[in-house]
C-alpha cells in the first residue's frame, strides 16, 4: 500500500506537464524463442521447458527544475537463459526522488553511486549481466568551500525483487586542489585526493564462529595530472569479513590499483598495476555469483570485442590476484611512408594476471574457516597463471571509402579458474590440476563505403587453441543498407574442437532497424556456450538456438 501511495505521489506532478517535455521514458524489451537443437545440445539439458522467454523494463524520469523523480518497472516472463533466474515476475524495482539545490544533492529511494574507482563502494547496474545492486535508502552530496565534495550514503542493496538483509553506510570526501589554488591549473597541474569509508551491518549468528556484524572498509586515492601525464592510485583496506567467498577466513583484505597514462597528439601510453587480496565485499556474507557486491574491482585487461577472442574473457578474481596492463597507441603521421595519405594507427596491449602468494599459516593450514587464512608477501606472485594477453593491431585507411584493420592476439587462459570457477586455494592443495590454454588469433577487418551511401564491413577471424574449445574460424559480413537498416550474417566454425561431435557451425543472422530513438533487432541462430563479461564481472551463457527480438526506444 505504501508503495502504491509513493507511486501515486510521484505521478501527481506528471499530470498536466507532459506537454513540457519533462517526462522521459526508456523502454527495452527482449525475447527469445528457443528451438531444440540436437547437435548443439544433444541431451537437451539446456533446452528450457518454456519455449519463449522474455524480459524488459521501462524507466520513467520526471524532471522539474531542481527536482527529479523516477521509477523503473521490470518484467521477466520468464528471464532468458543465462541471466540469473532469481529474476522472476514483475514489479517496480527502482524509484527515487532527488533534489539538487545550491550545493546540496539529496536523493531518497533508489540510487547508484561510486566512491573513487569503486574498490570499496560501487552501486551500479549492468543489464547485460543481469547485475543490479542499486541502493535503497538515502544519499547526500554536498560541496564545501575550497573544492571539497562530500558524499554520504545509507541503505540496503537490491537482490532481484528483494533487498539485502545487510545495511550499507558510507561516506566519501574528495578535495580538488585546483578549486582552492587556481594557480595550479594555470601551470598545468591538476590534483585531487579523496578518502572513503564504508561499513556494512549484518546480523551474525553462528554456533561456532564469532562473526563480525559490522565490517568496515576504507580507501585513499589521489589523482595528479601534469602536462599530459595522469597518475591515479587508490588503496583500500577491509577488516575481517568472513564470508562464503573467502571460506570464512578472518584475514583482512586490501587492494591497490594504480594507473599512469600519458597522451599527446598521436600517442597514448597507459600502464597500470593491481593487487587484490581478499577483497570480496558484499552486504550479505553468504552472497554468491554477483549478488549484493558493495564494491567493484576494476579489471586491468582489455575487454575484447572480436567474437573468437571474446570467448576467453578475463574475470576479476575477488579472492586474490596480482597483475597489470600496458598499452601503447601510436598514430603514424599522415604523409609518412607507413602513414600514407590518411595515417596509420598502431596499437599494442598486454595484460597479465596471476594468483597472489598464499603461504600456509604457522600451524600448517591454509584457507581454513575461522583462521587468518594464509600469509601473503605483498608483491610476490602466486604459482597460478590466471591470464596473459598480448595483442596488437594495425589500422590503416587506404582511401575515403576503404579502411582495414589487422589484429593479432596471443592469450593464455586458465580454463580451470576462469571458466570452471575453481578457486586458487583448491589449486594450491591440488597442484598441477589446472588447465592453461594458449590461444593465438588473427582478425582482419575491412570496411567499404559504397557509392550509394551503403557500407559493407567484414571480419575474418581465426583462432588456434591447444585445448578447451580448440580451433575456430569465423566470417562476418555486415551490410548497412541505409541509415536505418543493417543486415549482418556471421558464422563461427569450431572445426578443431577436441570432441568431434562439437565441431559444428554457429551461424547467426541479424537485422537491425533504427527509427529515431527506436532500435529493433531481430536475430536468428546458434549461441555458443561461454562466459560473458562486463568490467571483469562475468556470467555463464548456455548454448542455445532460436529467434531473438530486441526493442529499445526512448520517449
Amino acid at each position, binding site marked *: 500500500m505504501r508503495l502504491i501511495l509513493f507511486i501515486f505521489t510521484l505521478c501527481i506532478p506528471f499530470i498536466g506537464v507532459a506537454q513540457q517535455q519533462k517526462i522521459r521514458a526508456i523502454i527495452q524489451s527482449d525475447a527469445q524463442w528457443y528451438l531444440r537443437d540436437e547437435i548443439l545440445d544433444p*541431451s*537437451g*539439458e*539446456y533446452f528450457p521447458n518454456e519455449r519463449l522467454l522474455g524480459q524488459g523494463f521501462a524507466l520513467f524520469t520526471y524532471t522539474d527544475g531542481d527536482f527529479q523523480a523516477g521509477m523503473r518497472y521490470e518484467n521477466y516472463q520468464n528471464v532468458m537463459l543465462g541471466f*540469473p*533466474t*532469481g529474476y*522472476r515476475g514483475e514489479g517496480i524495482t527502482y524509484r527515487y526522488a532527488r533534489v539538487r539545490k*545550491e*550545493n546540496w544533492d539529496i536523493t531518497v529511494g533508489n540510487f547508484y553511486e561510486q566512491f573513487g574507482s569503486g574498490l570499496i563502494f560501487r552501486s551500479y547496474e549492468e543489464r547485460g549481466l543481469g547485475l543490479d545492486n542499486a541502493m535503497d535508502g538515502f544519499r*547526500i552530496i*554536498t560541496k*564545501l568551500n575550497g573544492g571539497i565534495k*562530500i558524499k*554520504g550514503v545509507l541503505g540496503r542493496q537490491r*537482490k532481484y*525483487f*528483494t533487498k539485502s*538483509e545487510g545495511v550499507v*553506510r*558510507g*561516506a566519501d570526501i574528495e578535495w580538488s586542489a585546483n578549486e582552492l589554488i587556481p594557480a595550479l591549473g594555470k601551470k598545468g597541474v591538476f590534483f585531487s585526493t579523496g578518502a572513503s*569509508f564504508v*561499513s556494512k*551491518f549484518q546480523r*551474525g*549468528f*553462528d*554456533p*561456532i*564462529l*564469532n*562473526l*563480525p556484524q*559490522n*565490517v*568496515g572498509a576504507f580507501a585513499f586515492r589521489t589523482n595528479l595530472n601534469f602536462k599530459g601525464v595522469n597518475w591515479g592510485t587508490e588503496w583500500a583496506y577491509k*577488516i*575481517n569479513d*568472513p*564470508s*562464503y567467498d573467502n571460506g*570464512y577466513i*578472518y584475514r583482512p583484505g586490501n587492494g591497490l590499483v594504480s594507473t599512469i597514462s600519458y597522451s599527446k597528439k598521436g600517442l597514448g601510453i597507459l600502464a597500470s598495476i593491481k593487487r587484490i587480496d581478499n577483497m570480496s565485499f558484499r552486504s550479505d*556474507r*553468504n*552472497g*554468491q*555469483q554477483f549478488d549484493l557486491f558493495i564494491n567493484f574491482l576494476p579489471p586491468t585487461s582489455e575487454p575484447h570485442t572480436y567474437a573468437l577472442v571474446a570467448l576467453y574473457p578475463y574475470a576479476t578474481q575477488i579472492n586474490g590476484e596480482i597483475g597489470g596492463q600496458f598499452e601503447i597507441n601510436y598514430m603514424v603521421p599522415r604523409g609518412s611512408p607507413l602513414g600514407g595519405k590518411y595515417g596509420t594507427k598502431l596499437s599494442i596491449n598486454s595484460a597479465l594476471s596471476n594468483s597472489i602468494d598464499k603461504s600456509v599459516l604457522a600451524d600448517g593450514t591454509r584457507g581454513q574457516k*575461522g*583462521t587468518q587464512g594464509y600469509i601473503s608477501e605483498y608483491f610476490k606472485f602466486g604459482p597460478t597463471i590466471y591470464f596473459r594477453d598480448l595483442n596488437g593491431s594495425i589500422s590503416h585507411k587506404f582511401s575515403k571509402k576503404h579502411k582495414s584493420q589487422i589484429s593479432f592476439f596471443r592469450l593464455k587462459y586458465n580454463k*580451470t579458474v576462469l571458466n*570452471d*570457477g*575453481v578457486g586458487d586455494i*583448491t589449486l594450491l*592443495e*591440488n597442484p598441477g*590440476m589446472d588447465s592453461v590454454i594458449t590461444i593465438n588469433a588473427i582478425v582482419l577487418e575491412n570496411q567499404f563505403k559504397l557509392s550509394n551511401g551503403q557500407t559493407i564491413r567484414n571480419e575474418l577471424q581465426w583462432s588456434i587453441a591447444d585445448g578447451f574449445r580448440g580451433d575456430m574460424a569465423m566470417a562476418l559480413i555486415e551490410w548497412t543498407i541505409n541509415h536505418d537498416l543493417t543486415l549482418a550474417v556471421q558464422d563461427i566454425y569450431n572445426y578443431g574442437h577436441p570432441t568431434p561431435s562439437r565441431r559444428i557451425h554457429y551461424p547467426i543472422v541479424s537485422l537491425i532497424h533504427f527509427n529515431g530513438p527506436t532500435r529493433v533487432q531481430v536475430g536468428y541462430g546458434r549461441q555458443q556456450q561461454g562466459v560473458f563479461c562486463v568490467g571483469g564481472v562475468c556470467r555463464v551463457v*548456455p548454448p542455445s538456438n532460436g529467434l531473438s527480438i530486441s526493442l529499445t526506444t526512448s520517449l
Partner: protein
Amino acid sequence: MHYLKYFILFIFSSYLFFNSCDVIDEPFKDNTFIPIDTSSTIIGDTLVQTERAVIVEDFTGHRCKNCPKASKAIRELDSLFGSKIVPLAIHAGPSNFTGTNNDYPIDFTTQEGDDIATHFGIFALPMGLVQRLDYPNSHQKTYSAWSALTFLELAKSPEALFSLNAEYDSLSRTAVLNYSVELSSNQTNPLWIAVYIKESEIIAPQLMPNNARNETYIHKNVFRNAPLGPLGNLISQNGGEVGQIFNGSITSNLDPLLNAKECEWVILLYDKSNYKVIQPGSTLVYP
C-alpha cells in the same frame, strides 16, 4: 546553512566510525558447543520428539562441483545438532548439474523432487531451504548460512512435536508410517503434512570441487519419493490449539532399487500460508 553542513558531516561521520567495525580477535566462540541430543526418546517402537527440530533441504546434483561443500555443511550440522536436524538432499534444479551421462549414469532426480524445486524456484545449485523460512522472497539460502539459521531456529520453543512409529514388511516391501503430532502453540493458518522417503549410503560418482570425478562418493539423505505428493495434504483448514493432536498413517511400497535399511521417513508439519515448517521429524523405514 554553512554550519549546518559541518554539523551533518560531524553527525554522520561519528555514526559511521563508532558503529562500523567489529574486529574479531578470537573467531571461535569460547563456549565450545557440545551437542547433547535430547531431541527425542524411544518409547516402545515409537519415537517421541521432545524438542524442536529443523529441516534443511539441500538442492543438489551429482554434476555440481560445489554441491559436496553443501553436503559437508550438512555433516557439520549433524555433528553439532544430531537428530535435531532433518537433512534432505533433493537432486533437482538445472539439468546440466543433475542430468545423466556416461560418467554420471545414475538418475537421482524424481518428479516430486523436481516439483518441489520448481515450487520454490530453485535456480542455482547448491541451494537450500532451512525450515522453508522466508518464503516467497528470500527463502533460498546458501549453505554457508545454514548453520546460523539452524542455530536460531533451534533456540526457539517447539510449536509441535511428533510421535512416529514405522512398520515395514520386507516381503511386500510395504512401509507404513504412523504419526501423531501434538501442537505446542496455537496455529491459525491451514496446516499441512508432507511426507517423504530418503535413502543414504548410496555409492555413485560425484563431481568434486576440484573438478575431479569421485567414483566412490557416498550420497546421503537422497530424496526418493513423496507418498503424499510434493507438498503433501491438508490436515486442518483452521490451524489448531495447544494440545490438539492430529493422527495419521501413510503407506508406501518401496521401490525394489531402494535399500530399505538405509531409508528413512521424513515428515513435515507446515503452515500452508507461508510454507514455514512448524516441525519436521524423521524415523527409519526399517525399524
